[in-house]
């Protein structure tokens, strides 16, 4: 019986393969990245293909196993379809909704007020912006061993702007990290649901490998923000070292300065990052295949006795 179930499952799996294989081959042929010889795109597609093979094998085996257990074709069909509806429609929706309930995101109003408050009063609440500004002026005078702002070899306005920028970045990082932690907590539930739901597993793996998931978005956002900070620092430093105090509204960048502005270079997160972030999903898929094989082996005897 074990061989029969497995043989049937493999037969259906071959049929599924006949449909999916041309699609993956098409991806190889038509994606421009492959023609550029991108190793990253190649390994991502291969991994995606491997994950889908596991997923389809799991589905074929489960469906054949259900049909072996069910008394008749009618029950087998109904149970299989009920599983499909549960796993593809109900569970993903329920898990996403429940996790959002368990870890609620704060409203923009609260988020923005907290950031403004931290910038105004200081992260610890005892370091207001006015005091930070005064302390900075004193520290700068001390650093350059001068008594007045006019004696400074740098433009204090540039120094103040850059320091304020760094402080506000620190505040933003702190609050964004809290938001991202909430998102991670919410998504963790979705990842754990992959243990019982192969659809959630393959969906997350697909999005992760295709770089269309939340993690990839956050990675891009961080790269863009790092670039913005670098760019702002470049402008502030230019003002600090090339202008005099009191020229805030009149100082102009040298016409050649923009040539020195760093260019935004973005590189995709490595493939292993997608695998690492979706390790629960991957392990669940592998475990799912192993478990169903074991279950069939264990129940095959009972099925053959019962029939």
């Amino acid at each position, binding site marked *: 019986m074990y061989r029969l179930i497995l043989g049937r499952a493999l037969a259906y799996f071959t049929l599924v393969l006949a449909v999916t294989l041309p699609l993956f081959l098409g991806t190889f042929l038509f994606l421009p990245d492959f023609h550029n010889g991108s190793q990253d795109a190649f390994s991502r597609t291969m991994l995606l293909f491997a994950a889908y093979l596991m997923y389809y094998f799991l589905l074929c085996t489960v469906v054949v196993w259900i049909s072996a257990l069910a008394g008749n074709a009618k029950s087998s*069909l*109904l149970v299989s379809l009920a599983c499909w509806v549960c796993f593809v429609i109900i569970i993903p*929706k329920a898990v996403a*909704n429940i996790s*959002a309930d368990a870890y609620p995101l704060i409203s923009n109003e609260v988020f923005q007020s907290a950031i403004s408050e931290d910038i105004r009063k200081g992260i610890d609440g005892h370091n207001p912006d006015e005091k930070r500004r005064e302390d900075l002026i004193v520290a700068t005078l001390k650093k350059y061993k001068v008594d007045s702002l006019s004696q400074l070899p740098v433009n204090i306005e540039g120094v103040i702007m850059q320091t304020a920028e760094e402080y506000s970045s620190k505040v933003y990082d702190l609050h964004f990290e809290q938001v991202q932690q909430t*998102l991670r907590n919410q998504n963790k539930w979705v990842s754990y649901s992959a243990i019982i739901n192969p659809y959630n597993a393959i969906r997350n793996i697909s999005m992760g490998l295709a770089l269309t998931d939340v993690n990839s978005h956050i990675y891009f956002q961080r790269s863009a923000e790092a670039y913005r900070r670098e760019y702002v620092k470049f402008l502030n430093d230019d003002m600090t070292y090339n202008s005099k105090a009191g020229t805030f509204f009149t100082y102009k960048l040298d016409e050649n300065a923009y040539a020195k502005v760093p260019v935004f270079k973005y590189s995709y997160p490595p493939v292993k990052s997608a695998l690492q972030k979706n390790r629960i999903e991957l392990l669940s898929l592998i475990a799912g295949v192993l478990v169903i094989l074991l279950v069939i082996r264990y129940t095959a005897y009972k099925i053959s006795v019962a029939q």
Partner: protein
Amino acid sequence: MIQLIFKYEWKSFCRNKLQVVFYIFLFFAGIYAIGYGYREIEKQKATIALIVENEREQFSRITESLKADTTTKEGKAVYMRSVMPGLGRVQHKYNTIFYPTPFTAFSLGQRDLFPYYHKLNSHSLYMQVFKNEMINPQKLLAGNLDLAFVFIYLLPLFIIAMSYSLVSGEKESGAYPLLKTGAVSLRELFAFRMGFRFALTVIPVVLLSFFAAWINKAPFNGLLIAWLAVSVLYVAVWCAMVFLITSFNKTSAFNAVAMLGVWLLFLIVAPAFLNAVSANKYPINQTLISDAIRRVQLDESERGQKEVFEKYYALHPEYKPYHIESPYNLAKLYAMGGEMKDLESRPMIKSYFDQIALRDRFVSSCNVVSPAVQAQQLLNYIAGSDIRYYLDYNRQLAAFHQEIYLFYADPLYKNKTLSENDYAVRPRFLMKMKVEWITIYNGMLMLGGWALVLWGLAYWKMKKI
């Protein structure tokens, strides 16, 4: 006769444990969905209460600061912030709120996708209008498990599970020849049995709807009746559809596959297909509007200022006589720059919203092919979470922004200050929400048409079995 058939159908239903479990599951799913919708709307209400309170505090601070002691440095600074329109135009925030209706929790629709409130200042509108609450994309992808979801997605499955072997089951169990000898024609018998399934499905619809109304303190009015009518008509469409498939007299397995195929077609394929076609037909290019939503940056040099003033006074010559050289001209510069940037961006933003409206209109005109899409849109419309309300809110918001703009810009350009009397008559936003009953009637008519045609076909086809 009907009583007898219903009595035995009830007995047969109770004997099938899987069906009973599914039925109970429907109630639990419904109760969870009601709780979910309620919590989502309560969260939005809490945010709304917070911004309303913050706005109230802001204006009470402004009123207080008008009486501030201007002989002190702090007092003068506070006073100036309130009377100078050039400062107030960027510092003062005005709420525009799209309040949920008592029925919104029933069907959350577009409520999570589009912003339901804005905090506007008098500066460039488009810089402010595209901001939204933070939300997990995974949640947006999954969608909401609200009461409309239970009705639109799960109820048809229950009807299918109960009815796929309505005729074929009798054949497969060998009872069919016996039924043929009965006093009632087979057509009538099966129609009554389908009627029982319809009645059984309508029970959770009515009970859950009333429960949702009670939880959300929704009044018993025309909208609640419309909600019930649309939901019941939707159940009728599915019962008729299932009855029609059954009338083809095929095996139970064939019926189950055919019914689930129709379910997939109406609920998964048709919406995805309509969305894909409408997105392709009316594309939206987000990058085009990205320039319009950025902060207004202007050349503050003397020459740059002169250019902006000349351009603006050509548009509004009524303000030219008030022009003076003043340190507050930077505020004027940015107010004028903001208005001109909005004017320049308006056609682009209009086309963006027009595309959204056209997409919606396209889906609405095509939804005749899927009663599920039709019913979902109708339930959203009744609940006040349909995209048409959002577009309407956006139009009202733009008109309100013009009021705020003039509230500050007019005195600014005329070199005047703001007083307590001005603040007493400051612009206030109150969204006007108009339910077009003709939309609901037309939708109901369409659903009723589906049910009648399908039932008629099935009844005619049943004659032959």
